[in-house]
């Protein structure tokens, strides 16, 4: 990997260059919550002033720019009892600035499912390759447990990655387009001092992480499959599916076809879903493979921490705790994992 440092004014100038030709998505402060804490969201911005790179976390993840809530898979037009299919992929390139390591790791996890396995998704790959990613280090967010699931650092999955060194950024460059972009503004080779400042900043961040004891979670998930912990937490779940909507790694969906009023066209759309919603595993005729909330909640955790780990060596969850913050019933991974862990040691 190549490294450079760039003064903050110069970096701002780079954002201006991005803005002059393409859409730029970045963390934007949109509100304050009832405790007076700022609320951020990844949104299109039109000037550098709208960007707040010091944000703690966002309510929704940036997943929506890769897996939109609704996406047309194909359209059909009808004529004389016959039909024709049309498929379009999103081709417009854009910049996504200010992703935290957990969110970049989340994209790497999605890549495993959507870009490398059987049947790579052209919809996803098209969006992924057309997105230039600038990541940034940050102080650990409240409630997050990214370190416990190994998602607090990244070595790839971005074009540029920034670490704040006060007046300048330490930049890791991970692609030729990242290299070329950075060279549009003034940057310089890293010095011994830069390296030391960088290591110091990293150590500072590492210290801020809270420890969540996660040992052998995949195995624990298996053993605690019948645990009462699931019933206790399941009883609270509203089955609303918000957790999956805000989660940067949840990717499941349903399909719906909409016919135009004049019956000449229809659109086949995928709509992101959630395994906590009642009819997730229901089949025609009324049989439901996961009829109750506890089973569905358990399944969500089981897939995140055991099933995915079995297939891809690491859990799917990146520990951002967005689901925990979004849940009206107060269901959150740190508490559930702690309960399971305790159950396991009794």
């Amino acid at each position, binding site marked *: 990997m190549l490294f450079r440092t760039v003064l903050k004014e110069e970096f701002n100038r780079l954002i201006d260059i991005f803005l002059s030709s393409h859409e730029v998505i970045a963390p934007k402060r949109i509100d304050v919550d009832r405790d007076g804490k700022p609320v951020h969201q990844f949104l299109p911005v039109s000037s550098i002033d709208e960007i707040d790179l010091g944000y703690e976390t966002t309510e929704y993840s940036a997943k929506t720019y890769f897996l939109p809530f609704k996406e047309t898979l194909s359209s059909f037009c009808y004529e004389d009892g016959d039909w024709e299919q049309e498929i379009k*992929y999103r081709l417009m390139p854009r910049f996504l600035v200010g992703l935290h390591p957990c969110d970049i790791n989340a994209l790497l996890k999605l890549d495993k499912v959507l870009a490398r396995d059987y049947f790579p998704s*052209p919809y996803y790959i098209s969006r992924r390759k*057309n997105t230039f990613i600038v990541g940034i280090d940050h102080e650990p967010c409240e409630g997050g447990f990214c370190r416990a699931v190994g998602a607090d650092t990244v070595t790839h999955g971005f074009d540029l990655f920034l670490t704040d060194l006060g007046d300048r950024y330490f930049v890791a460059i991970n692609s030729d387009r990242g290299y070329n972009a950075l060279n*549009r503004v003034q940057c310089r080779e890293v010095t011994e001092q830069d390296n030391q400042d960088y290591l110091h900043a990293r150590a500072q961040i590492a210290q801020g992480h809270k420890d969540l004891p996660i040992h052998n979670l995949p195995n624990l998930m298996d053993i605690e499959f019948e645990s009462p912990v699931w019933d206790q937490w399941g009883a609270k779940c509203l089955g609303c599916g918000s957790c999956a909507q805000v989660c940067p790694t949840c990717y499941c969906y349903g*399909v719906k076809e909409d016919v135009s009023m004049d019956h000449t066209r229809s659109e086949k759309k995928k709509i992101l879903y959630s395994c906590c919603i009642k009819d997730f*595993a229901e089949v025609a005729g009324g049989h439901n493979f996961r009829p109750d909330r506890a089973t569905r909640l358990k399944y969500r955790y*089981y*897939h995140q921490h055991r099933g995915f780990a079995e297939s891809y060596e690491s859990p799917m969850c990146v520990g951002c705790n967005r689901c925990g913050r979004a849940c009206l019933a107060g269901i959150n991974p740190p508490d559930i994992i702690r309960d399971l862990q305790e159950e396991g040691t009794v």
Partner: protein
Amino acid sequence: MKHVLEPYDITRESEMLAPLDYNRRSRLKDTDRIYPAEIINVIRLTEMEKLFQVRIIDDTDRERFTFLPGQFVMLEVPGYGEVPISISSSLSHKGFIELCIRRVGLVTNVLHKTKRGSKVGIRGPFGTHFPMDKMRGNNILLIAGGLGLAPLRAPIFHVIENRSYYKDVYILYGAKETNLLLFNYQYEEWERIADINLRVIAEEGDANWTGEIGLITDLLDDIQVDPGSTSAIVCGPPVMFKFVCSRLTEMGIPMHRMFVSLERRMHCGMGKCCRCNIGSTYTCLDGPVFDYWSVLNLKEAI
């Protein structure tokens, strides 16, 4: 000056990805491409089930379309939706495939109203298959309950067309009522031409029924096979294959030579929508055909 970012156009991507096993091919840009197809004939089987003969319209695509027994297709009815359906015909049939469909919901009901000549679409084939090659030299038990006979027909045809590969072949078929029996016009052919021991049983008989009455497991009571060289394929609802497979285990047939086909909700067939997922296993990719030992190891599979 050039833009910082040049668009990446996936439609220009032409690389054929590494060939996939089980006949499943996927060209990067073609994963959602549907083969236009025509329903060339509709055969009414019972009140609830019809058999559709479906032909891929494009000659090259039709020629290239191959599958293995146990695989399924996604059948698209544009404007209504897409449903996974097992291929219920012989591999050697190049002209069309047969799909036996029960009407239960939106798409399947629309299909039951369609007539010859209607234009639908096909994606696939998808999923794993019954390993017919590995069963060579074995006695074969083909066991179906209810609609399970639909996916079982592909292996049945395979056995018939390669009869010398297999020793004794049994088809055991059970249905709730006698008027729900599927494909009864083929029974005689299977028995007389293919030298298959066919046993049909119904839970409730009627005035004209001269056959056996009881449960599918009853048929296993008096079957004498050498368990060491016997393979079984069991298709039907979970309760049924659970009972049947435990009986087969008692008879001494090893679990890795019993094959079942699982059913789950499916929206893509490609391991993307996650609806068919059981813990870590996609039914559409790693299944629908599993050996029984794998099924026992899947949490919440039965």
